[in-house]
């Protein structure tokens, strides 16, 4: 047994951020936060996904994830949350990606480079694909959102990570701030688990919290 090396963590973060980008786009599409017209069909993880072609939105998502990445690298991000809010900026839905360390780093990966091996990656890809598929059908288990929703991304950090975040800005003029209570608090949330994965390099689960009364 051993810890993941820094290099490996950065790889894990790469994989996760790539996945989160795809997932955020898909969530925005499936939950109709933006009109379907701005989305294009693409292929990722060997399944069809939707991706926005609005440059500013894409840039924003990219920037956000760029800022999330250092946190994941340090294993500081506990949850990455895509919050969909109604016109009054009260959250109606939260897509929570809960990230934790893999339960066991098996001895198989004795050298850092082995983590790059293809079987592992294809395995992880398989698991991520399942997430994507779950997201694309999640509208079946969720109630419709009220019109005029917007979204935001929150990160729940572990321990004292916020302190460092204050100091280091990954992208200039794109700082983290503490979320308002209003954005975090949801009235009578109901929890809908979507998917859980456990792989050798990361453990992640996705669930949706939904406001009981959406309108």
């Amino acid at each position: 047994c051993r810890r993941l090396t820094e290099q490996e963590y950065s790889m894990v973060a790469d994989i996760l951020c790539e996945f989160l980008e795809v997932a955020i786009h898909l969530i925005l599409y499936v939950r109709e936060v933006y009109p379907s017209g701005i989305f294009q069909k693409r292929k990722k993880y060997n399944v069809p996904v939707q991706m926005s072609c609005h440059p500013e939105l894409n840039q924003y998502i990219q920037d956000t994830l760029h800022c999330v990445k250092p946190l994941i690298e340090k294993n500081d991000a506990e949850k990455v949350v895509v919050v969909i809010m109604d016109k009054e900026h009260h959250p109606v839905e939260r897509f929570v990606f809960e990230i934790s360390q893999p339960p066991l780093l098996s001895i198989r990966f004795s050298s850092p480079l082995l983590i790059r091996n293809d079987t592992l990656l294809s395995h992880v890809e398989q698991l991520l694909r399942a997430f994507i598929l779950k997201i694309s059908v999640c509208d079946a288990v969720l109630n419709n959102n009220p019109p005029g929703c917007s979204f935001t991304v929150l990160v729940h950090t572990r321990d004292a990570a916020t302190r460092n975040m204050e100091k280091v800005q990954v992208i200039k003029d794109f700082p983290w701030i503490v979320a308002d209570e209003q954005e975090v608090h949801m009235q009578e949330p109901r929890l809908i688990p979507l998917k859980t994965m456990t792989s050798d390099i990361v453990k992640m689960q996705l669930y949706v919290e939904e406001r009981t009364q959406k309108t």
Partner: protein
Amino acid sequence: MYKMYGGYMAAKVSKLDEQFKLDAPREKHKEGACSSIFSGVAIYVNGYTEPSADELRRLMMLHGGQFHVYYSRSKTTHIIANNLPNSKIQELKGEKVIRPEWITDSIKAGRLLPYLQYMLYAKQKGLLFPGMTLRQTSEIAGPSHRPLQLNARQKLHLPQRSIQASVLNHEQSSSGCQNNSVPVSSHTPLSNGHTHLVNGALKPDDLSPEQSSSLGAEQRPKPPPPNYHEAAKASESHLLPKQPQTPNQLDKISNKTHPSPASLSLSYSSVRLNGSHHNAFSSDAASLSTTNTAATPDPPTGGLISEFYSHSRLHQISTWRTGFSEYVNELHSKRKVAGGACFAGKDRLRKLVAQRHVDSQGTSAAINVKSCILHVDMDCFFVSVGIRHRPELKGKPVAVTSNRGQARVPVRPGANPQVEMQYYQRKYTNPQPGEIVMSDHFVIENSDSDRQYETASLSMAEIASCSYEARQAGVRNGMFFGKAKQLCPMLQSVPYDFEAYKEVALNMYEILAGYTHDIEALSCDEVLIDGSTLLAEVGVNPDDLAKAIRADIREKTGCCASVGMGSNILLARLATRKAKPNGQHFLKSEEVDDFIRDLPVTSLPGVGPVMGRKLAAMGVRSCGDLQQVSLSQLQKKFGPRTGQTLFRFCRGLDDRPVRYEKERKSVSAEMNYNIRFTKVDEAECFLTNLSMEVQKRLQEAGLRGRRVTLKVMVRKVGAPVEPAKYGGHGICDNLARTVMLAQSTDSGQLIATAVIKLLHAMKLQVQDLRGVGIQVQLLEGNQSVRQDCNVLRKRSIKDLLLGQEPSAKSNNRDTHQEKTSSTTVPSASSLPHPLSPAEPVPGTSKEQPAFRQTPKHSRSRLNLSIEVPSPSQVDRSVLEALPAELREQVEQSWTKRDGKQNNCRSPGTLLLQIPNQPDSPGIVLELPNFSQPKNPLLQLKQPGVGLGRVKRRYKRKNAISPVKKGASPLKKRQMTNSPAKTLAPTVYGIWNLMNVFSSHMVSLFQTETDPSTSSSHPDIPESVTKLIARPAPALAGACDLTDIKTLLREWVTTITEPMEEDILQVVKYCTDLIEDKDLERLDLIIKYMKRIMQQSVESVWSMAFDFILDNVQVVVQQAYGSTLKIA
């Protein structure tokens, strides 16, 4: 420009300060009277105050304080306000916001009073323990540590902040929901979220000029992500039908908040990027908390508990109730055995009725009461017993108290009684003026400060009970004696007489048992009787019965009792209030409505001061008011159960049966007297002892519990170090932490390990602990088993009561053992013992032979459950200091143990030690011993085909897990002695073992007694603990989803009635899944169970599912703050 402006502001502030300094002497001169009580205090007045800001400014001038016109976080020490809007309260959390009376009162008193009781919002807890008031993963960006953070980061400057307020007006107005992708200031990223909510004056101060210039320059918001509207346009594709309405709304919003077109997009597309934080500032907390230097009135804590409980006779009285309950239980079982009992009272009653029949015919027609509950309550029990043989005291105001008669005692150094008095007084009277005063003994005239000084030195011995004459003079139970003496100078004090109480209570129960056995013991002087059958059988009306009972009691005990009667328990109890003193009252069903309407809500059982205050806040004072509140409203406010109860109670409805057999919901032991620890060790030791007390009580009641709660009282920050009452707890914050054990236990060791961990997790200063309590819930019991025993063991109630004595002694012994054991710390080198299937036992178990103790042991030998350390480990001097009797016991146990030793080391005892979680130092596991008597629970379980049998199949099927290997010796055995019956217990053991393994709940099966072992564990390199795998949760050894489904199906289809044990295992598995963050699987399993269980013909399955679901939802709620959506 901003810079200049900033310079101007700075100049203004300093000028104002100067002005203040100049004015001060002049003012002092004018006034004549001046002092320097406020030196070092700098106030900032926020909003309207009484007296006005000007007046306060003048007062500060006169008395050496400072007055800030602008708020400065670094310089202002206190904020003065009479009330604040909610947003400001949020903002100022952690700041000292104090009512202006603090200043006026301080001046009156001529010295600086502690500000604690003048805090504007009682909920301002201060910063003492941020780590524990916050859930680590709490989503709320812990307000209580915000100030810390503010100190840590760069300070902002007042001047340009207020400019910003005007420049960024649009932002201020909307910043609550605003977009922070607008980088207001690149230098203070985290702050802008909240700081600009504050009003202009309330700005933090002293930012360097460079920063202020950068502020202006970098004002350009980053292009935010496009909103829906924009995006739709940009895409140049079809507009959705709902589109047209969007721009309108958009305009509306933007008109409200942002007049500028530039901000239009901002307001709508509040895409944002941010993080909530939750840090455990433990080190800061430590430095913040005041150090406790005052002399501690404390004896060594080791023997404290047993001393407390053996000396506290009051405590014993409270335990009598269990005794009486059991007495009633026994009556029932005896009757079952004997097939009938003689009811002396009943016979007499019969005669009476017969006589009556002769006298006048046909009165029996009046008796058509369907159900009748009698509530018998002795009138001021302690007093009437106390003056039973002292007729000269009858009719005089008398109080029972430990005080020897003098009303005054000297004040101890460090104590500040006034502060506490005022605190309580404020707490109880201020929040809702005009509310019923719950704790009369804190009512002191505030205006008259002289008298307060007097009260300070009065005796604080509490009055346990006082006579009606004393009550007329305003004396109340629980009042301090000194105070009472002031109210009623004639007041006589009577000492406690526990023997007499016991005797009278016994008498009363015997009398009542002469009438019926349908008795519920409420306390030593309070009983509920279900008179329905008795009345029907004998044919008397309730009033006659009550009269007979009262006469009987009066005659035999010399004390008066009052009886309340009603159709249910609630009404009977309420009727008793009317009956008192020395009377009886039957509350007829037609009178109920009128009667109850005018009662204050606080007279309802279960409505204490806290709930009373909550209700008063809703405008509900009487039961009539409460009747106006809808059920849903009540349930929303107080939770489903309590809400329902309130709804019914205020209508006089109550369907609780009179339970002669009380099912206990929790077992606990608490102490909040004389708790003064100086070291962590002491606290740990104390917890261990207290756990032993809990163990004792659990075993007495024959119960085992799973949920362990640690309650602590912590000195409130700013409260006097030494409370007014000697050894008392003073002003405290009450905190509680709960942990779920992997399985039910009655072992003090397990409880101790769990609570010690909880204590550490709370990160408290042990010096500030003022009270500690341990509560065990989710009880399950060998109750039925025990009842059987009761039939055989013919114990009189006297034995029950006397039985307290030996157990107290055994408790004493625990303490001694504790003391000795702490001298021998096992070597840490042995700790990370590898899991070796080949040699299961010897290595580890030898190391701490004396400290091992299995739950099994404790069950088989009730009160003697604690193992004594081996001779070599005991300090001879300690042993010699023991009373001869105890010493003998200890020595005996040594000799016994020698004989037993092999037994303990038999292959059945297996010690496994694996480091588990980072926070759990290690696990020592012990398998049940074969040679030991079978667990009664298991015997009970055998007849039914439980999950156990199914489990076994699974166990054979998959044999991969490490647990398997560890248990293999057992398994072999199991295969060889195959008859099914002997199998069951062993399987059970493995089953438990596996569950223990699979659980990574906080529970720890550490079986050492020695609390210091936990401190020796950290030697394990952290990396190891972190990397060790947490095995996947398993149900009966099955991990795979299909296996679990099969298992569940088999369980549901083959068994008609699920056993609680099995249900709990399923719940446990579900909880494990939550811990393991595998909600997906949890969801699948819940859905599957819902399908198969609700389909089942047996409604019990449906109920079982509801039970499981309820439990799971609670845990989900705890972990995620929301509940599962079940379609």
